């Protein structure tokens, strides 16, 4: 079906089709509509979901963990301070290897207060052990949320799917949806290995492991993350067969013979595409590398792609406040460290707090990368 939907509406619609067993959530701008619209589906009897309206995001994630341990398919949605409030529980969900799927309408973190889109909330959760997907369009958000359920359950890892707050969460796009039954057949039912409520087969959840076993369990969790890339690619391919839409983990846009490229995630990829097209029309050899999966860090794919280029600008819609560029920048420079011809890499931080990032801004960044010269390590794009 072809529908006009905002990012939030598309997420809620995907959740309706996924029909999770449990959704526990607390509303927060700009993700509020996701669970608000989903609760309408619950009230109207269009899903079988047990909807738990909790008193905080911390409780939301806690309820999700409890339900997931009982073998349920579980989802939630949040943003910004809400994701920050979930922080400690994120690690527990990942450590218990629970395939919880969370829709995030990415928003900046206070202070100062700002409700608009940037990646500071998701990226601040990067070390919690969750898979992280960043989407360019509403269509990609809808498609990715459905895929994420299957990926998470196959990998026994929780997954976060992010769309940029307001830019995607509140803007309507033409999207193509799948039929409910197609989604349900694609996902099947969760096949949990255990169920905490099965009293005939008692289990122990969350044991104390001290110097003897903690590190070993963490090593095992790290291996789960190490092994997930083939699962993502497999599920993307399966999804491509039913939907006809494919999203590579890492996409090279007009990178053939490019002298300079920028690497980035999220909605601004669309903006950069326009800038690349304009500059290519003028004969300038520029391109874009779009990164769709932030966790796991797809280091081998990044290295294979980026080592081909002489000049690279890494664009972060968040600053780690670490005095050494954006988070993606530091990871990409690490990835390129052990290559023979280390490319020229500079950091461009843009769009914090939803600051406008126009095709003209993108052209300016690409022009700068093309010159291969920067006075400063980090450029704060458009800051007065």
């Amino acid at each position, binding site marked *: 079906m072809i529908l006009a939907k905002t990012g939030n509406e598309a997420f809620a619609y995907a959740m309706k089709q996924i029909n999770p067993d449990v959704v526990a959530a607390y509303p927060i701008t700009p993700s509020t509509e996701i669970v608000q619209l989903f609760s309408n589906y619950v009230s109207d009897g269009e899903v079988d979901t047990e909807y738990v309206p909790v008193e905080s995001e911390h409780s939301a994630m806690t309820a999700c963990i409890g339900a997931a341990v009982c073998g349920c398919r579980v989802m939630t949605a949040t943003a910004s301070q809400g994701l920050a409030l979930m922080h400690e529980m994120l690690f527990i969900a990942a450590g218990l290897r629970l395939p919880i799927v969370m829709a995030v309408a990415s928003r900046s973190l206070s202070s100062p207060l700002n409700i608009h889109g940037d990646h500071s909330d998701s990226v601040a959760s990067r070390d919690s052990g969750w898979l992280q997907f960043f989407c360019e369009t509403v269509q990609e958000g809808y498609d990715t949320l459905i895929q994420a359920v299957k990926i998470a359950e196959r990998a026994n890892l929780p997954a976060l799917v992010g769309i940029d707050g307001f830019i995607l969460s509140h803007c309507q796009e033409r999207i193509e949806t799948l039929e409910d039954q197609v989604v349900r057949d694609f996902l099947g039912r969760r096949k949990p290995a255990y169920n905490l409520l099965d009293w005939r087969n008692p289990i122990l959840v969350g044991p104390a492991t001290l110097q003897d*076993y903690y590190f070993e369990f963490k090593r095992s969790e790290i291996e789960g993350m190490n092994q997930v890339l083939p699962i993502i690619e497999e599920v993307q391919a399966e999804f491509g067969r039913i939907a006809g839409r494919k999203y590579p983990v890492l996409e090279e846009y007009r990178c053939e013979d490019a002298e300079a490229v920028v690497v980035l995630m999220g909605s601004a990829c669309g903006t950069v595409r326009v800038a690349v097209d304009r500059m290519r029309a003028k004969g300038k050899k520029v391109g874009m590398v779009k990164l769709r999966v932030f966790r796991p860090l797809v280091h081998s794919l990044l290295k294979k792609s980026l080592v081909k280029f002489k000049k690279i600008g890494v664009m972060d819609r968040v600053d780690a406040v670490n005095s050494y560029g954006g988070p993606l920048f530091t990871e990409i420079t690490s990835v390129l460290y052990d290559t023979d011809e280390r490319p020229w890499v500079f950091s461009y931080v843009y769009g914090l707090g939803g600051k406008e990032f126009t095709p003209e801004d993108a052209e300016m960044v690409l022009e700068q990368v093309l010159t291969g010269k920067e006075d400063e390590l980090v450029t704060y794009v458009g800051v007065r």
Partner: protein
Amino acid sequence: MGKLKGWRELPCGAIITDMSAVKENKTGAWRSMRPVWNKEKCKQCLMCWIYCPDSAIVIVEGKVTGIDYDYCKGCGNCASICPAKAIVMEKERK
């Protein structure tokens, strides 16, 4: 304790389905107060069994027969819920 396992041998998510470790580890060791059950006063209502968070009330053929001090942590829930005052808390002596 036997040989420690390597990370490849551990259960996913530290979810323990083999409950033998629970039998090995006596978790009542740090109790400071001990519940003492009085058979004569007990009315066999089983409220202590319902409220005990450690399954430390010993039941034989549907009746309370005592307290499992290997697992009782001395929280006192049983003593405070008992309507017959058949369980009292006493200071643990070494």
